[in-house]
Structures are given as C-alpha cells and as structure tokens.
C-alpha cells in the first residue's frame, strides 16, 4: 500500500466530492482481499441470507395457518407475495448493499469493499447485476473454476470480477 500515485481528476465541486475522491484513491491503493477472507465472507453472507430467507418463509408458513384455505392449498396471491418478498430480500441483500455501502454485510464486517478496479468508485447497479448474475453463473458453470481463479491470478480477481471490472479490496490496513 502507498505505491499508487493518484492523478489530478480536476477540481472537485464540493468538499464531499474531494473526500470521495480521496477515499476512491485509497481503495485503488489498498491490497486485494486474501482468498480465504473472501471465501469466509461468502460463507457468512450465505448464512445471513439463509437465516433471513428461512425466517421469512417460516413466518409466512406460520401465517398460512391463519390465512390458508380450508382444503390446504396455498392461495396464489399469498404464494406470489412470498416469492416477491424473497426476490426483494435477495435484491436488497446482494445488490443494493453493494451499491449503497460498497459491500454485502459480511464483506463490510470483514472490512472488504467491492470497487471498480480502475477508479476505486463503488460499482454501478448494472455492474453489480452483471457481477452477481451473469458473472457468478458463469463462474459456477465452469465447474466453479471462476471462483478459484484468484488462487492463480496475480491480482486475485475472480471471473465475475473480470467480467464487470471490479476488485475486492481489504481496507483496514492502517499506517503502521
């Protein structure tokens, strides 16, 4: 860290912009997250998401005891609501948090940030969507090879990172 020399991007419009730029420059300069740490964050994210989805679905099942039909079938409106809520939860968890805070909850807990490789900025929604859907599906489709790519690449980027020009950085490396 400390090797990256930020370039002058032009006069910022406000102090907030200046600090944003400083933070982005810092992110570019931060080391790539170690593979084990990324894997740990992915597992923890899976746990969190599973807890959220399971809790919601079990509560929905419990509510069905009160609102279900007498013949035991699930009303279409009710099941549609459950599916829509699940999709919203996944969207909020996987996409919105990365867009808004720069990482999923587990990544934030481990002080990891998903940023644009070149600029250090947070990813745009379309980039995140590409990363989480096409990118990860492709990584999985290649027998999971895409997820193990960081082990052999110098810059520790996975296939879904390469597709949407992102990197996962470890940001708590302080000045020693």
């Amino acid at each position, binding site marked *: 860290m400390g090797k990256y020399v930020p370039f002058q991007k032009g006069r910022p419009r*406000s102090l907030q912009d*200046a600090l944003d730029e*400083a933070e982005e420059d810092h992110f570019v300069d931060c080391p790539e997250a170690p593979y084990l740490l990324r894997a740990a964050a992915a597992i923890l994210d899976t746990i969190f998401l599973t*807890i959220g989805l399971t809790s919601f679905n079990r509560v929905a099942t*419990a*509510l069905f005891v009160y609102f279900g039909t007498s013949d035991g079938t699930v009303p279409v409106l009710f099941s549609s609501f459950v599916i829509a809520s699940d999709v919203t939860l996944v969207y909020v968890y996987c996409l919105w948090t990365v867009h808004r805070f720069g990482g999923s909850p587990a990544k934030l807990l481990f002080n990891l940030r998903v940023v644009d490789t070149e600029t250090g900025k947070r990813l745009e929604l379309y980039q995140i969507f590409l990363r989480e859907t096409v990118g990860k599906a492709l990584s999985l489709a290649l027998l999971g090879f895409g997820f193990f790519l960081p082990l052999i690449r110098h810059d520790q980027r996975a296939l879904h990172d390469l597709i949407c020009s992102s990197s996962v950085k470890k940001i708590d490396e*302080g000045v020693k």
Partner: protein
Amino acid sequence: MILLVPESPEVPNYHLPRLWQGLVLVLILSIAYSYVEPVVTRDRAYVDGVQKLVDNGTIQLGTEKESYLKLRPLLEIAPAHADWDVKRLLLANFIHGNRVHLFLNLIAAYAGARICTTFLSFFWIMFIFIVGGTLGLTGSVLLPGEYSPYIPHVGASAGIFALMGTYYIYNFKFRTRYFFWFPSRHGKLALPTSWFFFFDVILLELVFSMGQLYPTRLDSIDHISHVIGFTFGVSFALFLRLIQRWPNFIHTRGELMFWHNLKQPPIPASVHTPLETWLRCLEINPYNDYIKKFLFSLILQYQENIRDEQIERAFRFVRPAFCRRDAPYVAGVIKGLLKAQRRIPPLWLRNTPYDVIIRVARHMVTDPEEQILLYQFISAYQTALPQDAGFHHKLELLLTKIGGLIPQRSPGFGGPGGIPGNASAGNTPPQGTPHSPPGKAGKGY
C-alpha cells in the same frame, strides 16, 4: 436455535467467561439423562406399539386412544396437560426426547450458561435455568390446543431461553462475539446483541407459539415454553439488576465492582476526579462505548482544565472500530477540540488508518463555518504520519483540493489559498494554560 455460535460478550480477555460453569451444567444434564434414559426408551417402544395397533385397526383413534396414551411410561416422570405435578415439572428440564435432542440441548445449555458468567455467578445461572425452564414448561402444559392431553412436555429449551433472555438484558446495548467456523484467523465476529434478538425471538418464536395454540400445529417443538422461559429470563434479569444497583452504562462485573467501590468526594474537587473515574473504567473494559462518550462529553465541556496527557489517554480508547461505528460522534469530538485549539494526539493520528480519517472527515463538512477544522484535521494527520508512510502525496493532493474549496476568511486557515497562517495551528496546545507550557507541543510522541 443456534444461528452463529455466540461465544462471549465483547469484553477484554480477563473478563471472558470461564469454562467450568457451562461444563458443570452439561455434566448435570448428562448425568440426569443417564438416569431417565431407560424410561425414555421404554416410552418410545410403548408409543411404537400403540402406533402399530392403530395402523392394524385394533384400536380406534378417539376416546380409546387416550386410555392408551395415559399409560405412557414417560408420564411417570414428565408432565402433560391432563397429568402433572410440580415435581415432574422440575424433572422435565432434565429429560430429553433422545440422544440427539440431548446433544443439541447440551450445546445450547453450555453456550447459554457460559455467556452469562461474565455477568452472573453460577448460583444465579442455575436458578434462572431451572426456574425459567419450569415456568416455561408449566405455561405450555397448562395451555390447551394439543392433539392429546397426555403428550408429555420435556426438554431444557425453556431454561436455555431463560438464560438467553438474561443475557440480552445484561448485554443488549453492547456487542456479542460469535464463533464463525471458517478455519482462518478471522473466525470471530462482534455483532450488536440486538440483531440476534430480533431474528430469533421476535420473528420466529412469537409467531410459532401462536401457531401452537391450534390443533394442526406446525411442528412438535414447544414454542410456548421458549417464549415463557425467555420472558422469565428478561424479567428476572431486570429485577436482579435493580437489586444489584447495576447502572445502564456498566457492562461487566469488574466495572460494577469498581463503580460500587468508588468513594465520592463530598464536594467535587475538580473535573479531574470524574475524568479519572471514566478513564479507569475504560481501562477495565475498553469496549464500553457509553463510557467513552461520557468521557469525551466531559473533555469537551471542561476542555480548558484538561491536560494534554489526559486527552491522549482518552484517545487511546478511540480505536478504529469505534470510529467506524460512531464516525459522527468522533467527528464532533475532534471539531470541539480543534475549535478550542487543543491538540489532537499525534500518536492516535499516527495509528489511525487512512480510511477511518476519511470517514470521520466526511462528518466534519456539514457546517460551512467549521470546514476550516477539516483542513486542520487533515493537516494534523499529515504532520503526525511518519515520512515513509506512503500517504503524503495523497494527503497533499487532498489538502490542495480542500484548500481550494474552503472559504478563505478564517484567520487560522493556512491552506494553499494564499492566506498566511500555520496549517496545523489547531493542533497546537493553548498557550498560557497551566497544563500546556509554551513549546510543549509535539514533544513526547
């Protein structure tokens, strides 16, 4: 119900829970189960036999069924809706459906007892486990809505939930360390205790316990006893804290003992007495964020009487994790100190990561009148860093940008805008105060 394994409250090593209390509880549960296991086995064989008779059509599902179920061997030692007494209600805490049920309960009981030991002695832990468990089982036994009134209620879950309720009261405002089973050094996490509370108890158990009142119940788990056990744990912990005169901002027993042994001077001599008290409290438990806030409120209120050395001691407890969580608060403290022309401890600045500085700085730009303080803060950070830190170019660039944006009317502003002054003026101690002799700034770091 275990989500992540709660290991301990977030406390220093010397306040970590001891092992033996949890182990003793596990031992008691295991020995008790070894005594009742023959009855449980006999009961299972009996129920299987009755089930076969039902399948063959030998007996009818109706009133005849009850006459068979009331003869279940387990009812000799476990309570049911139509057949119970206090002795069996107490004993039921130590009976489990099978060895798998026992194993799961042992893990949960061990975790529950262990995490409470930071706050309570073993006597109270056992008391809460047994009384909470018994009350939980009593509630679920007395409430109707079951398939048969002769279904026995057993298990340690109600007692475990009582321990959980106790723990939540003692640690609700603080954080819990969780064990996360990934084999790396990052296998532990500190999360606010309240997160676990909402997921587990409110969302799931309350809804399920309502569902349990219907004959077509969701599962065979006794959710009502969980809720009652938890409620007892919460209520009893609140009562116990009242008896113990436990203030809300105190986290551990160590702090409580220190607090109770304080000898208050009849007339407060100076601000240094409470300041020293908070500092000593933080030395006992540096994770207590509430005391940090009390400490800095005091520093900001009486800053003209506070010595640089005391500010430096206070900043030792402002760690990166606290700054990340409470960046607006830390920004407020720094603004207050800079406004009073007090020095931000260079040692703290040197040890604070760059991203934390930026995060705090973001909260210093809200008021245009105070933006000059931002410049002073970043300048102080640059000055405090060692030459080989590798950040100087970035910081110079940032200072240039900030300097071009701050209104150039403050006399203390020393940015590149052309107004003369010292960029780190705010980081020098006030001259002429008794505690800051001229020329002391910068020494000793």
